[in-house]
């Protein structure tokens, strides 16, 4: 009698666990699809959370958490700089439009391309990411959530996020960071550019799933 009760209990628990798992995946699938629909994305949200898309996420986030990205996504009003992400020297400030203060603009020093004489980096539209897009101090999952949230991503839909991540010249500068003022090459992100671009697209096409922490 005791044995059969125990067996019955185990079976019930198994059924409950499977149901919860299925329900969770279904909710996740619905949420992802709804998000993609709401964003007006032409990228199909398959929401097939495969190992491949998880690998793509890992690859993408290893780039987005790199100093070449995070130095300009600070959580305060001072940019970060250098390999050790120290506060930008010379009292440089975010300013009202993320391009510096009225007479100390980003482009007082940073032009449209790297300057190998001075070691000052440059790319078109050199600026800080708006404070809503602060990534400094966030985990990779928190960054990804922030990136997908229209309230903190500048109102971009998934397609526009992919475009920003894979085509914007300031983002792609990370793979051509030039040399510092001592002539030492700046560190590039850990994944080659083409591989990173492919990973971003793969992750988005698979439903832009963000794994749990």
């Amino acid at each position, binding site marked *: 009698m005791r044995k059969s009760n125990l067996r019955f209990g185990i079976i019930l628990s198994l059924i409950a666990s499977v149901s919860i798992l299925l329900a969770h995946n279904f909710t996740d699938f619905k949420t992802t699809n709804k998000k993609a629909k709401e964003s007006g994305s032409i990228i199909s949200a398959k929401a097939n959370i495969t190992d491949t898309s998880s690998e793509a996420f890992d690859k993408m986030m290893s780039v987005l958490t790199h100093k070449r990205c995070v130095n300009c996504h600070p959580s305060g009003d001072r940019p970060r700089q250098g390999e050790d992400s120290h506060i930008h020297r*010379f009292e440089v400030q975010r300013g009202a439009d993320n391009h510096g203060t*009225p*007479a100390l603009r980003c482009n007082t020093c940073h032009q449209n391309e790297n300057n190998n004489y001075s070691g000052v980096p440059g790319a078109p539209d050199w600026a800080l990411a708006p404070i809503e897009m602060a990534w400094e101090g966030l985990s990779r999952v928190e960054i990804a959530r922030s990136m997908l949230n229209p309230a903190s991503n500048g109102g971009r839909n998934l397609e526009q996020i992919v475009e920003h991540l894979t085509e914007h010249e300031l983002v792609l500068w990370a793979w051509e960071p030039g040399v510092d003022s001592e002539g030492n090459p700046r560190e590039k992100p850990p994944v080659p550019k083409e591989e990173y671009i492919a990973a971003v697209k793969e992750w988005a096409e698979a439903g832009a799933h963000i794994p749990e922490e």
Partner: protein
Amino acid sequence: MKISFTINGQPKTVETDGNTPLLWVIRDVLDLKGTKFGCGKAACGACTIHVDGNAVRSCSYAAKFAEGKNVTTIEGLSDGEQLHPVQQAWVEEIVPQCGYCQPGFIMATAALLNKTPNPSDDDIDKNIVNICRCATYYRMRKAIHRAAEIQSNNS
């Protein structure tokens, strides 16, 4: 390459490697020696000029970017014999010591007053970040406030 721009109201065309820092075109090609070389790393601000009215560190500004632009150096800041308010204030407050970095400070301050005519101390701290090894900062701060006053009176 040929690069054409206006400098201190004069149209100029120079033949140079486009990546040459504009500082060296100004000093060595156009023979305007008021703009100084300090650190060469866009850090000290001694080479500050205006490009289309904005302060720019000319040691870190490739000459090719000047194409079609309006460049002003310390030599072109005054209105003929009439000193710019910042220059006038610098004289009144006897700011310079060795003087080497001062053209950069004056150009940076003139750019600040264009955007913020009556700067607070905080505005000065956040906009004028050039370096003076004689540490004339205290007199400069007074001179910046005085320049704002002169500018306001002139207008």
